[in-house]
């Protein structure tokens, strides 16, 4: 998306363990950098007003809505997208949770939802309560599932990650 005569900003970003250096226009949104420059189209744009969370990625260990950041703001940052979750072809427990619990229908919100839960479950480090999961995903919209199975998926994943005990209901 560079154009002659336009001032570009050089950024270096580590995404899913790989380091990239690019010159980008200052106004380029991070989500467009991830999708259009890096070709990682698992991160989606659902609203461009930070309401829906479909663009959620992990930046420096925290879930962020990548449509509300400029790409240059990620200079020096470490980013994880949905494509970086599975390891050695094996799904992350959260991905597996969604598969086991019918946590997705159209799948458009799913990557953002998963990244938000990745951040949340990594922070709480235990099995959360249902109410905690609901609060955690409040900023991620899903229009298909009614959220019930997403909550189930998260609890299933938490159990896989941290064992049964914890918050309970």
């Amino acid at each position, binding site marked *: *998306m560079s*154009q002659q*005569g*336009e001032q570009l900003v050089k950024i270096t970003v580590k995404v899913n363990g790989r380091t990239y250096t690019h010159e980008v*226009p200052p*106004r*380029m949104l991070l989500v467009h950098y991830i*999708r259009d420059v890096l070709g*990682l*189209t*698992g991160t*989606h*744009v*659902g*609203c*461009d*007003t930070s*309401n*829906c969370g*479909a663009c959620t990625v992990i930046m420096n260990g925290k879930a962020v809505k990548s449509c509300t950041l400029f790409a240059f703001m990620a200079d020096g940052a470490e980013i994880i*997208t*949905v*494509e970086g*979750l*599975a390891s050695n072809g094996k*799904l992350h427990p959260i*991905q597996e949770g*969604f*598969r*086991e619990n*019918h946590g*997705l*229908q*159209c*799948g*458009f*919100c*799913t*990557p953002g939802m*998963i990244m938000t839960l990745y951040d949340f479950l990594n922070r709480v480090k235990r099995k959360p309560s*249902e*109410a905690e*999961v*609901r*609060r955690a*995903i*409040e*900023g*991620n*919209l*899903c*229009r*298909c*599932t*009614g*959220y*019930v*199975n*997403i*909550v189930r998926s998260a609890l299933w994943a938490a159990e896989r990650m941290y064992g049964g005990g914890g918050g309970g209901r």
Partner: protein
Amino acid sequence: MYSRWIGWRYSGRGVARLEDLRLLRGAGRYLDDIRLDGMLYASFVRSEYPHARIKRVDVSDALKASGVVAALTYSDIEGRIKPWSFKSPSSPMYPLAGDRVRYVGEPVAVVVAEDPYKAEDAAELVQVDYEPLEPVVDPIKAMEPGAPRVHEEAERNIAFRKKLSCGDVARELARAEVVVADRLWIGRKYAASLEPRGVVASYSGGELTVWVSTQTPHDHRDELLERLAKPPRSVRVIQPDVGGAFGAKIEVYPEEVVVPYLAMLLGRPVKWVPSRREDAVSTTHGRDVGAELEVAATRGGEIRAVRGRIIADVGAYPLGVWLPLTAAKILPGAYKISSAEVEVLAVYTNKTPLAAYRGAGRPEGIFFIERMVDLLADELGLDPAEVRARNLVTPEMMPYENCFGWKYDSGDYVSTLRRGLSLLRVRELEEWASGERARGRLVGVGYAFYVEITSGGPFETARVTLKEDGSVEIAVGSTPTGQGDATGFAQLAADMLGVPMESVRVVWGDTSVIEEGVGTFGSRTLTVGGGAVIDAVSQVLERLRSRAGEVLGIPEGRVAYRPGEFYDMLEPDRVIGLADLVRRVYREMGESALEVVSAYSKYDPKTPVYPYGLHVAVVEVDRGTGRVRVLEYRSLDDVGRVINPVLVEGQIVGGVLQGIGDALYEEMKYGGDGHPLTLSLSDYGVPTAMEAPEKVEIHIQETPTHHPHGTRGVGEIGTIAAPPAIARAVENALGGALRVRRLPISPEEILRALESAR
């Protein structure tokens, strides 16, 4: 009948979806994920006025902007793209507005640039001189003599009008022991699929390839052939992964014709993906239908007649004039109403055109009748369940033709109501709520009994091919947009063929892969599309059966089948496996093997099928804010035979939350000046996880239908049944302080009601 094997292994079980793995890894391919070499980006300039004359459109500054390749207005496409004309009195709808705009968001010009940012920049440089005209905003006032007109052709702004009547309404009203009357309305909705609309087009060698986020690729192909006057077979439409549709991706939109035209004109691929705001204002809206009704009954609560009118605000163009008609046809609901007279009206206003949104007319009709039944029960001081029971169509009346001509295929409504009341523990809930209310909590319970029409025609297609390697490929003309129907199709085929599900591949959404198809809408995919799959599999098996006879050296009449093998019915140990037989056919016939191992079906569902059931909502009203939360939701639905309970439950639960949105949170609001006010997802009110009920209990009843797999449609139940149940629950919570007449129920209205009840 090979379909008798459906259910021996996969069907009826909640097997995991075939669709998921790709989507979970972020490897889905949605419209915006498509990138082609040399691709250009379109940005549309849209009307900022609800109603105005266009005096001049000047694209000269836009053309000078960096990266801009083209900028087109109406004069550039006139005579090149055929506008839409309608049966209703209306001016044509132009892909880019001509001399007049009729709603905020109507496309006026388009700019094409090397990158999407520059396209958007340049679109802002297009200058449009408007002469504002008085907007038509209120559909009731729109019908007054002297009101300004949206279309000169439409007197009193009426786009469609029809009177439905049956029985002797005048006599029944005259001798009625009681008549209740009310005015009801469901506000305007926006489907708000998480993925907006969008289109990519590429043109080379006279062939136009169009990717579009749609529910109806075949219809898109036919529309493009017509709008662009292309020769047959020169257009291919591909439906990529679709991030939700809900009826709003059925129509063929102006942008979806302009962008392909641009690709042809410029000889380079062109993409258009709207911003959320743009999607909200340019994608068809739903509901916005009201009713004025009188119900005549006996003191015992027996409904004798219904009279009134149903009015839809169809916005600026007559795409959705059928919606109030559907609402009227389902208005008799599950009840034996033999006299009714309903005037159906579709009225133009200067708003985004109305079209299908999940339920499309049935949520409106069922909301109206269920509200009126509750009102009647209150008027008579009777139990609403008892009033329903007295009026329900009884099993011996099935198939039952309702008095506006819709024929309910089967079902036992009376025992389903009784069973539902006990299974869903409605009385206990009511007792609990009344106890809580006595302690000061504003909690309430409400329920609704619905019937709805699903699985319409005219047909659906499938091509089933058994491959030499033992795998099965199924191409379908229906076009799932997230429901998981591919898994359902694979379950049906795997059962019939006796192969593992993993060896079945289901493809759809490409007019070059399957020539004909209708699409995914109206809760038809697994029922009608599944019928086509079953028919095609049966055809293949039937052809192979005669082959099996040759191989086994017995007359065809002696060849029997069980999943995966044919055998001699007199000597059941003499067997030829399906896979062996298929390999043999390929070996012997080479290329022409497909004549045996591949079959195509164009399945005619003949008549629609009608799910029905009881839905119960428990709500709590916040006394301070007037906000309502649904605490708990329970349902009993007869959806016919279930192919995959997990998918069925997913459809019901997801639909219920949209129904909760309909009832309590979602409305596409317009100001009195005709400007839309709710163009972001937060303003519009899509429910979050915090609005979802904490407890959901779904029960299924499986009365088979006439389809070979016995199913009914399930996709729209939630949005149909939830709103009237919630409306009643809110009334119950407020102890009669509010009569719910309009959805969504606003917190302001609730606070006012609480205030005046004090």
